[in-house]
């Protein structure tokens, strides 16, 4: 125990040294002092006040105008009525109904705990499968270890999430298949296979559509803009900012070409040497942008606000080669 405490102290010392070394190099590379943030004020405070008020208003509206149900008293001896649970447990009920398709398996049991032969029936599979979503979610941070967090940057994860949400929704829909059958199909049993097909298949096209929508968003400028590291390599490489020595505004390729601005280097100051494009990790074709804007300024070309100046990347087959 004492040894472990000593070890902790030693670890903290070693780690502190490593951190300090890392931080020194990091601060040097920044070139300016770090600032203290001011959390939650004023944006979050205003937002939270508005949303809490809105939700409380909805709650009080429901409270005043929708009575909480109280059904007839329950009877343990005669259970006849068709019952389905609250909406947030319907998905589990839906799994129970879908599990009726799984064949019954006779498995060997563990004699002191269970009978010799255990019948794994629909109820068992339904109950067991209800735990699967929680297991998948619990393992998620240890499976998905990629760095990208935004849905636009990780479209597959987002599409998987949409698939999951849709599947939970369709399972909940399937759990009330009797009611849907009564209401819309006049007790024709053919609606059950149809509903089942919708339950299994509907999430896929939605997820696929979401995936391709996010993929298309990746071509947009806002996506590029959010990827700007603010590394200021473009500003460092630019020969014009070397001699004009203005501290701010600095040159920022993504911002300039997105907002059609000329921060750092004026429109007619630029040499179009391409040094900034060469160092930019996000591959903005800045000299083309400047030349285009000059042609626009001279009236040679028509202005198109949606024109893109992202250099198409060529990473070879499967994107494996460096550019």
């Amino acid at each position, binding site marked *: 125990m004492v040894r472990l405490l000593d070890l902790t102290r030693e670890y903290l010392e070693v780690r502190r040294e490593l951190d300090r070394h890392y931080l020194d190099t990091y601060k040097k590379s920044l070139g300016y002092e770090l600032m203290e943030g001011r959390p939650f004020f004023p944006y979050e405070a205003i937002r939270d006040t508005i949303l809490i008020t809105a939700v409380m208003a*909805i709650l009080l509206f429901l409270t005043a105008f929708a009575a909480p149900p109280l059904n007839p008293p*329950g009877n343990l001896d005669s259970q006849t009525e068709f019952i389905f649970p609250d909406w947030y447990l319907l998905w589990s009920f839906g799994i129970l109904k879908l599990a009726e398709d799984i064949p019954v398996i006779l498995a060997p049991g563990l004699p002191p705990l269970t009978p010799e032969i255990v019948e794994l029936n629909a109820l068992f599979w339904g109950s067991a499968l209800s735990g699967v979503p929680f297991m998948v979610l619990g393992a998620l941070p240890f499976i998905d270890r990629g760095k990208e967090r935004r849905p636009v940057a990780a479209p597959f994860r987002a599409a998987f999430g949409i698939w999951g949400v849709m599947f939970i929704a369709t399972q909940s829909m399937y759990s009330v298949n009797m009611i849907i059958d009564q209401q819309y199909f006049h007790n024709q049993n053919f609606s059950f296979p149809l509903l089942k097909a919708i339950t299994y298949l509907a999430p896929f096209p939605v997820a696929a559509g979401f995936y391709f929508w996010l993929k298309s968003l990746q071509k947009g400028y806002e996506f590029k803009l959010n990827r700007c590291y603010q590394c200021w390599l473009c500003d460092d490489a630019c020969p014009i900012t070397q001699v004009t020595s203005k501290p701010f505004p600095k040159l920022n390729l993504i911002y300039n070409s997105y907002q059609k601005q000329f921060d750092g280097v004026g429109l007619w100051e630029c040499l179009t040497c391409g040094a900034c494009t060469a160092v930019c990790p996000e591959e903005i074709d800045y000299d083309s942008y400047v030349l285009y804007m000059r042609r626009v300024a001279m009236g040679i070309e028509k202005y198109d606000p949606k024109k893109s100046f992202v250099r198409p990347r060529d990473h070879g087959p499967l994107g494996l080669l460096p550019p």
Partner: protein
Amino acid sequence: MAAEALAASPAPGFFAQNPLVPVVLGLIIALSVVFLALVFTGIIGPKAKERLDRKRQAIRQLGDRKPLTLIEKTYLILFAWIDERLRLRHFSEQLALMPARDAYYTIHRQMPTSHSDKYNVKSVWAWYPFYCLGGLAFVVFLELVITGVVLGFYYIPSGVVKAAGAPSPAYESVGFIMTDVPFGYIMRSLHHWGTHVFVAIVFLHMMRVFFTGSYKNPRELNWIIGLILLQVTLFFGYSGYLLPWDTLAVGAATIGVNMATSLPGLGPIAANLVFGGVTLSPATVLRMYWFHIFILPAIGTVLMIVHMLIVWIQGVAEPH
């Protein structure tokens, strides 16, 4: 020869009856062999991690000074993992009266100047309201606690009936709350609709965390705690709507008890624990009441405090 042996064998065994099982088992084994091979060759897993991981560097340096036993190494890895997520070492620095300024101005606290303001990014604001859902859930939880305390003064947790089909004291007390208690109707209504709003907000909160990838390093621990809290929430809702002991409650309890007992081995034990028996009885109401007002609130409140403490320690990273 083989055919004769097959013909002479007794009734087909478990695998012959279920031909899919060996296929699935074989697939699982083959996939795990491939996975282990990838880990050992260093294509994935810890070996593939970059060498500049300061956590690993520190442990390696300690090992170079003095050889570590297995227990010590395990302890160090665990400690380093938690330390990386909860910044224990920075608090230790402040406790040891190290220059607090250094501890405070670390890279962990940094926020760049508002990105959305400078570059006029619009899509950030579409996500912005979703970052308030956790706090909103907490506010609704407080509302549920207050109304629940009021309801608890009048509710009678008993399912014992005088004759079959007669209303139980639990059912009658709920009726009493709704008709005779001053503001009782509105209290039950607030508690009922508060539940629905609470569960909806919790679902949305979890979806926000999923879609923004907020469960990733360093927030794995909080994601797991959140999952436990989700299950507590669902069980809160379930045990809550069993309490009036009306037809809905009995139907839902029947499904629950059937689901629990269908799991061989542990199922009956769990049913005995949660429902007070492998079939429904008046004891079920008392069990559900005790879960609803003591056990779940105790677990939920402690985990909620830990959940929010970790958020406070790690800081939030809302889009700006």
